[in-house]
C-alpha cells in the first residue's frame, strides 16, 4: 500500500529511528511500511495518523480500491 510517511517524516526532519521510537516499533518496521513492503495493522495506522495529525486516508493510498472504483 502506497503512503506518504517518508515525506511527512522528512518534512519534520525526523530519522526513521526517531519515528520508530515515537511509535514504539523497530526502525526496520518503519522502513518496511515506508517502502510498502508491509501494511501496518489498524492500531498502528491510527497511531501513525495521530502522530502526523492527519487521517488514515490522507496518509495511506489504497490503490486497489481506487482502481476498482475507477472501473
Amino acid at each position: 500500500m502506497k503512503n506518504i510517511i517518508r515525506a511527512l517524516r522528512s518534512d519534520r526532519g525526523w530519522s526513521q529511528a526517531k519515528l520508530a521510537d515515537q511509535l514504539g516499533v523497530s526502525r526496520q518496521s518503519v522502513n518496511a511500511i515506508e517502502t510498502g513492503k508491509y501494511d501496518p495493522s489498524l492500531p498502528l495506522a491510527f497511531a501513525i495518523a495521530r502522530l502526523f495529525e492527519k487521517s488514515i486516508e490522507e496518509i495511506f493510498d489504497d490503490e486497489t480500491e481506487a482502481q476498482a472504483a475507477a472501473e
Partner: protein
Amino acid sequence: MTQQTFKSAKRRYHRVFWPLMAVYTVIVLAGSYTLNQLDPEPQWLQALLAIGCAVPVIGTLLVMLRYAMETDEYSRLIQLKGFAWGGVVTVSVIFVIGFLQLFHVIDNFEIFWLGPFFFIAYGVSTLILNGGKQC
C-alpha cells in the same frame, strides 16, 4: 498504546537470553570436566548433566517465542516466519535423514545436531526475510 513495545521487548529478551547462555556454557564445560574426572562415569550424573544442558536451550526457545509475541507487529511477523521456515526446513531434513536410515543408506545419525540446525535455519530465514538485517 504502542509506545516502547519494541525496545522493552528487546530488553526483556536480552535480560533472560544472555544469563541462559551463560548457564548453558557453564553446565556444558563443568559437566564435561566433571565426567572426565570420574571413572566409571555414573549414569545418573550423565543423565542429570544431559538434562541440565537441555534446560537452558529449551528456556532460550521459550524466550525467543516470548520476544516474538511481545515485539512490534512487523518484527513479530518476521520472527514467526523465521520460526516457521526454520521448522519446515528442519522437519524436512528429519524426514530425509529418517528415510535414508529406514532404507539403510546411512547408519547412525547424531540426532543432537538437528537442534543447532534448527537455530541456524531460523537465523538464516529471519535474516533473509528482513533483508539481511537483524530484527
